[in-house]
């Protein structure tokens, strides 16, 4: 018989390094829809932390934050991009829609990032943890930071 590869019999798990189950896609979807891109980025970063791969995923989250910052910057400098006027001259702003759409796109990207881990949970029947506290915190942080940043941008320009 061939020798067993040594690295296979090196212990991988310890009480400290144990990964935790991640929050469900349903919770992520709702948070992305209601809280927008920044909230879902924070929420997904929590999932990465639970999987012990936050450092690896960090560039993707920075890119996500960049997308949201870009939308906010355009909102301040080019507001007409988010406005549609009807025949009566009434203008409707679609900024919130754009933030939500970006949130859903980011949610899709983050889901893809962790899709293997979601499939593992499906095949092993591992339940998802309760998302309420984490999602609530990310929602408040996401909305709060976006409002603060938007005001700061308006004040600067």
């Amino acid at each position, binding site marked *: 018989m061939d020798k067993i590869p040594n690295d296979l019999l090196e212990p991988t798990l310890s009480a400290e390094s144990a990964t935790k189950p991640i929050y469900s896609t349903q919770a992520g979807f709702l948070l992305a829809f209601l809280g927008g891109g920044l909230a879902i980025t924070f929420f997904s970063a929590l999932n990465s932390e639970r999987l012990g791969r936050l450092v690896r995923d960090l560039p993707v989250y920075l890119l996500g934050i960049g997308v949201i910052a870009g939308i906010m910057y355009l909102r301040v400098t080019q507001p007409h991009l988010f406005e549609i006027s009807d025949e009566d001259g009434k203008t409707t702003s679609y900024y919130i829609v754009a933030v939500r759409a970006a949130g*859903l796109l980011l949610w899709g990207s983050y889901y893809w990032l962790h899709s293997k881990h979601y499939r*593992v949970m499906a095949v*092993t029947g591992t339940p998802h943890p309760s998302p309420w506290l984490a999602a609530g915190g990310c929602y408040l942080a996401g909305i709060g930071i976006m409002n603060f940043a938007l005001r700061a941008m308006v004040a600067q320009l």
Partner: protein
Amino acid sequence: MKDEGPEGSARSVPVTSQLAYLVERQRFAEAKRLLGNLLAERPEDPDLLFYGAYIDHFEKRPEQAMETVQKVLSLDPHHESARRLLFGLHNEARRFAEAERVLIDLIKDYPEDADLYAQYSMLMLETQHLEKAQKLAEEAVRLAPDDEQALLASALCAFVADPSPETNHRLQELIRRYPDSMRTLITMIVVLADRRRHKEALLLSQELLRAYPDNEDVVNLVVALKVQNHWSLKPLWPMQRFGWAGSAGLWVVIVGLFAVLPRTPLAPWEGPIFAVVLTYIVYSWVYPPILNRLMRR
């Protein structure tokens, strides 16, 4: 672990063989009576104590089972079946680091046992160490290409890497060799449900229910899939077919619809159309859980 028989520790004592026979056939009442008599004569016999632990484990008394297993291992540290049971107890209690330690020691002592590699692979899968799970599954298949556990671990690792059942050769091998195995069927149902092929998944789960009518997990699976296939949920087809991406797409369509509606001849109907869309959204959120509860009765 639950499927594993305790026969590994049966030694050549006729009465112990009788006990093994009863335990294997899950005739636990008779087994406990016999075990009580035998333990009165040989209270420190590791094999007898192991059977006690095995019955406790099977009858869902993990603390008692753990206590007895530890006693067995203090009397005979190399007792193979007790060590396997100890792994199962740690694993089920989600003490994964301890479970891994027991398993590594077992593999070192039994390096050609493919089942041990397969179990280690499943442990790595459960703890999200996908690369190592894959390597261990490959090792298990290399040692025993036809072993059910090895094929299962390998099929699950392949599914996690690429969910397409058509390219999962290990899953195809598993189905070909063990078409009636509960684990094969559950794996196939999970794969089909993931690909949103709910009709085929329901048919398979009903087969499974016929074979295991008392298994609560199987009953829950059938109910969940029946809900997915119910005629009254047909209007939710975009979400059923494309999942959350379908919901997101639908939202984009609705936002687009209400953005252009005022500029179309349908503008006077904006109110009723909004009411229909709102009703649809409420129905998509509220109705499926209600149907799920109704089907469970």
